[in-house]
């Protein structure tokens, strides 16, 4: 019962955060509300017994990636006057909602047809570091290695793109 209660709190928070992201004019506010969404998502992961992912969501997503984004926003020193004027935003929002309703309703229909199960917390032996690590390094070794290469490539790419260039070359 308590878990269910928690689920509703977290889901309302995350939806509010997402709506805030879409509606706030300044990206700093948007980033702050996105952090709200991410932290509530971390809570939901915990409710789903994914302990490792819960931790990683907090550390990597809400921590590292979001602070990187915030850092860049501050680095560029964005003033309100720098922001683009978004005159047709409301029309786009309304049109978007109209377009997304069929998609959402279709997907919800699909989800409803799935076999349900109670979201009780599973105890030991599920979603911990050891268990996920075993699965990761046994069944998912190749994708894991590929992702490591991907990270390396994006690292180099970021350096090449954003790095300073010598004049005249």
């Amino acid at each position, binding site marked *: 019962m308590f878990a269910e209660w928690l689920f509703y709190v977290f889901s309302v928070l995350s939806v509010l955060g997402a709506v805030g992201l879409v509606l706030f004019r300044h990206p700093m506010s948007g980033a702050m509300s996105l952090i709200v969404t991410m932290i509530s998502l971390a809570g939901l992961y915990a409710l789903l017994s994914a302990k*490792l992912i819960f931790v990683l969501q907090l550390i990597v997503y809400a921590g590292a990636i979001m602070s990187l984004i915030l850092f860049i926003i501050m680095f560029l020193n964005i003033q309100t006057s720098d922001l683009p004027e978004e005159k047709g935003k409301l029309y786009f929002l309304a049109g978007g909602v109209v377009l997304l309703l069929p998609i959402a309703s279709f997907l919800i229909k699909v989800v409803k047809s799935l076999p349900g199960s109670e*979201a009780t917390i599973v105890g030991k032996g599920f979603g911990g570091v050891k268990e996920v690590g075993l699965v990761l390094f046994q069944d998912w070794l190749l994708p894991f290695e590929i992702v490591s290469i991907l990270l390396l490539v994006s690292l180099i790419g970021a350096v090449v793109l954003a790095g300073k260039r010598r004049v005249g070359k």
Partner: protein
Amino acid sequence: MIQHYLILSIILFCLGILGVISRRNVFTVFMSIELMLNAANLAFITFSRLHLSMDGQVLALLVMAVAAAEAALALAVVILLHKHKGNLDTNVFSLLKG
């Protein structure tokens, strides 16, 4: 009960799409994409719980890694664009126009 998680994931995903198509601020668009990735992650983990298999969690892990890589590159591109155009409006970048 477990479907509620999935419905939440759908709602978040749709909000992400809404952000991408309605906003002109590069950062907001970028964060909306992150939101969509998170929604997908939620679906993965829900399914992992549903089937009591940890493959979904591993996938969520991989998505996080990809998101990190994407963030690094995308922010580099944003800095570059800001340097060149001095602007964060996506409508400024319209080289695809025929």
